[in-house]
């Protein structure tokens, strides 16, 4: 229901953030995520950063394996 795009925060200013997804850049709202900083990775949906991304999907899969699927 909600396509998300992971992107890197380049710049933050007054409630908005410039994000970069492999060279595609766009201003998005930074209102929904507290304390965004340049260098953070965020999930972007419909023009707003909706969450910080704290690790990559590979690491996450490995962790899940270890905990639940070993």
């Amino acid at each position: 229901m909600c396509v998300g795009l992971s992107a890197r925060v380049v710049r933050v200013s007054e409630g908005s953030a410039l994000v970069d997804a492999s060279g595609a850049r766009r201003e998005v709202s930074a209102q929904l995520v507290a304390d965004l900083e340049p260098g953070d990775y965020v999930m972007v949906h419909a023009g707003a950063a909706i969450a910080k991304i704290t690790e990559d999907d590979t690491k996450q899969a490995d962790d899940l394996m270890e905990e639940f699927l070993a």
Partner: protein
Amino acid sequence: MDLRGKTVTIAHGAGGKQTAELIAQVFKAHFSNPYFTADDAAVLPAPEGRIAMTTDGFIVSPRFFRGGNIGKLSICGTVNDLSCMGAEPLYLTCAFVIEEGFPFEQLEKIVSSMEMTAKEAGVRIVAGDTKVAGKGQVDGVFITTTGVGRIMDNVQTSGSFARPGDSVLVTGDIGRHGCCILLERDEYGIEAEVSSDCAPLWNSVKAVLGKVPEVHVIRDATRGGVGTVLYEIAQESDTGVLLEREFIPVDPAVRGVTDMLGLDPMYLACEGTLVMVVAQEKTQEVLRILQTQKYTHNCAVIGHITESEKGRVVMRTAIGTQTYLPQPGNELLPRIC
């Protein structure tokens, strides 16, 4: 000649003195060659053997974009269509429909890049036509080009010639023109360094066919992109196509833009990228030749033709599963879901 501030008026299309002036100042200045005369039709030596002939109309908004303009596009489109049939582009005609009030300076730029592109492709512009339409009746300028080419000996390409086992190649990374135009229209506030791939590909094709005349299919992946062309080939040849998703070259910035908008670069137009279907044993040779050519060094084998799944395009994913490439269809709209 100073064209600054001058605009095209209805009088320029009326056939009188001002039409002659427009032709002299803009078209003749650039398209000059022995065949381009004031007579009603160009008189040309007939080439030997088989000829290929094609026509295409060009409307693009914006008219000037990163990597080209409507003029360059109008030459590349027709040159590439001829090239796909293994035909050396010889002669081209062009018909302009120009909106009243269109700046001469822009027209001059467009015509000048047509000249340069035609020169690069080795094709001569031998006849032209100009009509002026009232303000609002057309969007700036529309160009139609028609081309004639001589088909190389021993060459026969067709969308129906793909055979099971053949390799499927693209001559460059895909979807760049479509992505570039999307960005230039600036409707979605996205910025990225993406240039159109718009380029005349005859020299690349000639180099390939000179060594490997038995290429089965060549098709340019314009409107509808590579995905659409592959479905056409699968259906016309009554075969399947199996692609390896990870082998398909996509410029990272194009990937970023399409991911942002929920689009698939497989359906975005290319204007300087061809799909080729080649016998498996000739694949490496064709790749090596393409790699040495100006516009095709990003070429890649992206899959092969199959006996099964007739009429369909199947994609092998990074996790080893197979899935269908959705059939192309509707207007590309960005999506949130």
